[in-house]
C-alpha cells in the first residue's frame, strides 16, 4: 500500500468537516431542525445544471511503459456533464451575503495535452499518460456574493460570486492510472461567476471554476477547469 500523504487539500477538507459541527450541531437539529436552519440561513436552495469541463495536462518528465496515440485522446475541448446540489445562503454582519454549496457532479472532461513524445521510427505524437475523462465529484464551496448595480435591483439582481471550492473525486480511475497512482482524490478550485435573480422566484448562475491544485500527482500537472450553468430555486417551493 502506498504511504498516506497529507497534502494541503486533504488538510483543508479535514478542517472543513471538523468545523461543521459548529454550524450544524446534531443536538440542535434534532430539537427543531427547521427553525434552527431558518435562524442560521436566509434560505435553503436546490440547484441543478450542466457543466463544461476540460483538463489541461502538462506531463513534464513523467514516463511509463504505456504509450497512447494523442490523435485518439487529445481533443482540447470542453465536454458536457451535469450536477445537482443544495445551497445554504446567509449573511455575515447583515451586509455580506455568502453561501455554502454542496453538489454532486458527473463530469465528462475534454483533454488538452500540452506536451507530447515521439516513438520514432513510428509516426505520430504520443503520451505516456492517458487522462481519464469521466468523474463523479462531490463539490463543496463557500461563495461570497455581492450585488452589482445593474438594472432595477428591486426587480432583478445581478450578483458577482467569488470563493473557493473543493472537488472530491468519488469515482475510481482507470487501471491505466491506478498502475501509477496518477490521480489525486481532491482538487482545490477558485470560483468566479455571475448570478441573475428574478425577484426571488429563481436564480440563474454561471460559474467558472479554475483548478488551483493539480488533479494529478507530480510530475504531471493537470488543471481541471469548468463552467457551471444552472438554476437555483428555494427548497421550500418543493418541500
Amino acid at each position, binding site marked *: 500500500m502506498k504511504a*498516506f500523504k497529507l497534502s494541503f487539500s486533504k488538510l483543508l477538507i479535514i478542517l472543513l468537516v471538523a468545523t461543521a459541527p459548529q454550524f450544524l450541531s446534531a443536538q440542535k437539529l434534532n430539537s427543531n431542525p427547521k427553525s434552527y436552519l431558518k435562524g442560521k440561513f436566509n434560505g435553503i436552495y436546490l440547484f441543478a445544471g450542466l457543466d463544461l469541463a476540460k483538463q489541461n495536462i502538462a506531463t513534464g518528465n513523467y514516463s511509463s*511503459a504505456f504509450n497512447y496515440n494523442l490523435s485518439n485522446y487529445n481533443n482540447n475541448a470542453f465536454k458536457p456533464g451535469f450536477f445537482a446540489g443544495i445551497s445554504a445562503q446567509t449573511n455575515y454582519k447583515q451586509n455580506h451575503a455568502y453561501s455554502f454549496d454542496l453538489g454532486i457532479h458527473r463530469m465528462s472532461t475534454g483533454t488538452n495535452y500540452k506536451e507530447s513524445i515521439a516513438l520514432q*521510427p513510428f509516426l505520430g505524437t504520443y503520451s505516456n499518460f492517458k487522462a481519464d475523462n469521466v468523474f463523479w465529484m462531490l463539490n463543496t464551496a463557500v461563495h461570497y456574493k455581492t450585488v452589482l448595480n445593474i438594472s432595477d435591483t428591486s426587480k432583478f439582481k445581478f450578483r458577482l460570486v467569488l470563493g473557493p471550492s473543493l472537488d472530491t473525486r468519488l469515482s475510481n480511475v482507470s487501471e491505466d492510472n491506478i498502475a501509477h497512482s496518477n490521480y489525486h482524490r481532491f482538487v482545490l478550485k477558485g470560483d468566479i461567476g455571475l448570478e441573475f435573480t428574478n425577484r426571488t422566484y429563481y436564480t440563474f448562475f454561471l460559474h467558472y471554476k479554475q483548478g488551483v491544485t493539480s488533479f494529478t500527482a507530480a510530475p504531471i500537472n493537470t488543471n481541471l477547469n469548468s463552467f457551471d450553468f444552472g438554476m437555483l430555486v428555494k427548497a421550500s417551493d418543493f418541500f
Partner: protein
Amino acid sequence: MKIIKFFTITALLIVGLNACSKDETTAELNVAKNMISDKTWYLDFSITNNVTKSYVGQTTYFINFLKSGQTKDSDGISGTYTVQKPNTTMQVYVIASTISGAQANYTYDIESIGSQNLILSYTKNGLKTQLYYSAK
C-alpha cells in the same frame, strides 16, 4: 470532544479512500496484457546498434498473443506467454516450441506498449535490439 470525533472520523475516511486502491503492479500488468492480447503484431522496424531496418510494406514477421495465454508466430513457433514485472521493467515470457517440437523459449523486455504500438527489446552478445511492432 465533538471536534475530536469529527477529526478522527474524517481522517479515517480520507485514509480509507486512499487505501481502497488496487495493487499498482497488478493494475500495470492487467493494462499491458489487455493491450497486447487478441491482436496480431507485425514487425515494422528493428534497431540494432543504431542501424534501423524497415519492414514496412514487405512480408514481415508477425506474432499473435491471445487472451487465453496462447501465442503463435509467423515462423510456426507456438506456446504460451505471460506478462510479468520481475523488477522495474515489464517482460513477455514465451514458453514455446517449433513445428519440429524443439524448445524455443525466450524473454523480451517491454520498452513501450500501447493499443497499436509495441516496442520490445532483447540483448544478445552485448548488443541490444529493439523491435517495433504495430497492430493491424
